[in-house]
């Protein structure tokens, strides 16, 4: 029957993707809701005006924070969404690991460039 032959193919990168997924999970769980609050409710309630938000984004700490949040969240989402596609019955798409981690890597590079040119 199928499943008997367990292939011992090495998957050297898998722990890395899982660790990035986990780091991104923690980062987005802890920091994304409050960030959404800042870009929505705080703006609508006039607690944060245009000038202050721009200063926060451009501040060196703000830039470092946003880069980390964006990059780790992309890796978190790439990993989780890829497996969700497999679970949704789309393994032909979800199993293309390079596509999802590749997009997250490109996103990280682009975000890094955005942050550095500010």
């Amino acid at each position, binding site marked *: *029957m199928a499943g008997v032959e367990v292939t011992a193919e090495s998957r050297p990168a898998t722990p890395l993707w899982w660790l990035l997924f*986990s780091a*991104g*999970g*923690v980062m*987005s*769980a*802890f*920091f*994304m*809701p*409050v*960030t*959404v*609050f*800042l*870009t*929505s*409710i*705080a*703006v*609508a309630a006039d*607690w*944060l005006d*245009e000038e*202050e*938000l*721009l200063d*926060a*984004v*451009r501040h060196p*700490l703000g*830039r470092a*924070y*946003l880069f980390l*949040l*964006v990059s780790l*969240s*992309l890796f*978190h*989402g*790439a990993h*989780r*969404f890829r*497996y*969700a596609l497999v*679970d*949704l*019955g789309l393994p032909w798409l979800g199993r293309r690991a390079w596509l999802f981690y590749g997009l997250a890597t490109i*996103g990280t590079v*682009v*975000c890094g460039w*955005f*942050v550095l*040119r*500010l």
Partner: protein
Amino acid sequence: MDRHYVRKLPAMWWLRKRTYLVFMLRELTSVFVVAYALFLMVVIWRADDPGSFSGLFDALDSPVGLVLHAIVLAALLFHSITWINLTPKVLVLWRDDEQVDPRLIAGANYLGWAVASAVLAWLVLK
């Protein structure tokens, strides 16, 4: 081997049980995490030019911007809560030959989440 009857899992299996549905909704919060990360990239990109940033800020302050944010916030809160609730399953700690109560680990994470949120809000809004 004798003839067997093989049952296939239907594509909509995750609608069959509440636990499966909650799982799938939890996994699909990843869509909102990525969507908001991409939105933040746009914010950083537009912050290069104050004129361009002005247009983005007006969009944030619009009803459409608020509704989209509310949807994202609901999904992200679900992500945060489910993530923290599962953390003690991965992180099993021992102290003095006794396993640290999983509820203590989850509790410490909730506290950390609250403190992190408060500090960030204070830094930006002060």
